[in-house]
């Protein structure tokens, strides 16, 4: 009979009429966000960073700008560079996360925010002062040990560097600092 197809379609529409809505009213309600979400507000641990600029070399767009000078530390103390400029231009960033993957010392992490609207483009450049001052809420993307701790950047607070690295200490430092909650077993090697 002509019209049956439309009728059966109407039944589907009617069924959806009584379903719970799938949408949420955004600013008040939010969908749960997965901790792996690669977002803005990069998290950077200065204690772990040596200024090697691996992140800048691996960035496909070349939007990370690093200027360093010799840090004054001896090779025995780690011999890292002191950071003068660490600009991340997130206006051009595509959040691929290759910089995080490239970092050999676990110093750079993706953030978890997504509401970084600004009036001026220059405000979208994350400077080194902002990176230093920002709360450390690293995304667990590419950091499975954070997932092992069931860390959620949206729920849990700022995370110290002792907890965030793949390795419990930055392994360019010859003197090993004690990691948090670590048992001393007497073994000096990782």
């Amino acid at each position, binding site marked *: 009979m002509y019209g049956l*197809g439309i009728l*059966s379609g109407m*039944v589907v529409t009617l069924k959806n009429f009584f379903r719970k809505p799938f949408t949420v009213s955004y600013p008040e309600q939010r969908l749960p966000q*997965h901790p792996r*979400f690669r977002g803005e507000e990069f998290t950077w641990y200065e204690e772990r960073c040596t200024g090697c600029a691996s992140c800048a070399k691996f960035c*496909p767009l070349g939007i990370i700008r690093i200027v360093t000078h010799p840090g004054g530390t001896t090779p025995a103390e780690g011999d890292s560079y002191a950071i003068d400029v660490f600009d991340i231009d997130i206006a051009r960033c595509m959040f691929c*996360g*290759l910089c995080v993957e490239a970092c050999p010392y676990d110093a750079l992490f993706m953030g978890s925010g997504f509401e970084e609207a600004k009036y001026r483009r220059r405000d979208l450049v994350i400077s080194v002062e902002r990176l230093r001052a920002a709360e450390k809420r690293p*995304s667990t993307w590419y950091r499975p040990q954070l*997932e092992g701790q069931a860390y959620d950047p949206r729920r849990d607070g700022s995370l110290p560097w002792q907890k965030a690295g793949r390795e419990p200490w930055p392994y360019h430092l010859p003197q090993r600092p004690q990691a948090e909650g670590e048992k001393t077993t007497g073994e000096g090697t990782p």
Partner: protein
Amino acid sequence: MTTGLGLSAAPPGERYKRLLPGAMSMRSEPVTVNVGPQHPSTHGVFRLRVTFDGEIILDVEPIFGYLHRGSEKLAEERTYTQVITLTDRLDYVASMTNNQAYVLAAEKLAGLRPPERAMYLRVIAAELQRIASHLMATGFLLNDLGAFATPLMYCFREREKILDLFEMLCGARITLSYMRVGGVFQDAPEDFWPALRKFLKEMPGYIDEYEALLVENEILVTRTRGVSVLTVDHALNASVTGPMLRASGFPWDLRVVDPYEVYDRVRFDVPVGKAGDNYDRFKIRLDEMRQSLRIVEQCVEQIEPGPVRAESPALLRPPAGDAYARIEGPKGELGFYLVSDGSIAPYRFKLRAPSFINLTVLRDLVIGWKLADMIVTLGSIDINMGEVDR
């Protein structure tokens, strides 16, 4: 052919004469109209210069290139890992399959073999992406038909769930960059598997819903059946691939014909259409979604723990040579041709974009039909301008 005045088999000129018997004697002047480049039903910045006689299409000239970003040239100065981020932006509703085709080509070039678990993860991700892409194609086809937003929103509801799964997997929803040369970047998190099983359980019910809503709908059937028929010979001559070729009745699916990754270990059917009209092109996508679900189900059963990434240097330097890898993308045969000169960046990067090649038959399909049919035909081809213009 039930509708369409039985004209579809005739060549375009004949079709036009029979459609309007007095047309050639009547004094009328053809009018040229631009559809696009900014038009809600052209699926991106795509311009069609159409010559009309009244409402009948006499000629169509597609003009594209508005979204050209030079991806192929850009890839020549990026490392093999950095190119993955460019492939995300080719067919941006199906990033996962772009990643897959590219890494397969790069692995062939470098002689790497990914671990088993990585191959299963890739196939699961690619099939989920195929469902998402087909949902998008179905929704927008119905939007073009005039069913404004209702089927589209139903389709987007399920696509949203797939994007949520992708967010769990790799932290992004559209520009995924999940796969790496030699595997995937990271294993799936623990809570991914229950969420995937829940999706696999729910999704067939939703596909039933789309079928109840759409497949027998008289308006849709009248508007699409017999319209813009693509014959098998024509499709093969124009090297059309993907759901469009299968809708014409030719069972060609690279997952069966030339199995890559783990497709030779799963069982699935290749849905084939009969007439090759707009209706078949719409219906075949619904059928393919069910088959994709079957593939994902079998992969979830077969997957075993293990490493997900082969040992490879951070800066890959494949030996000099060339490689071509192809996969069955959601829109057709997606192939990448890479030439290496032994350095860290590809010497040449060439992409066989399925929607670009499928688009070439548009002119022959729509001549003699009306403007509204042209919009639907364009929707049924399922083009993506990110890939056409690249």
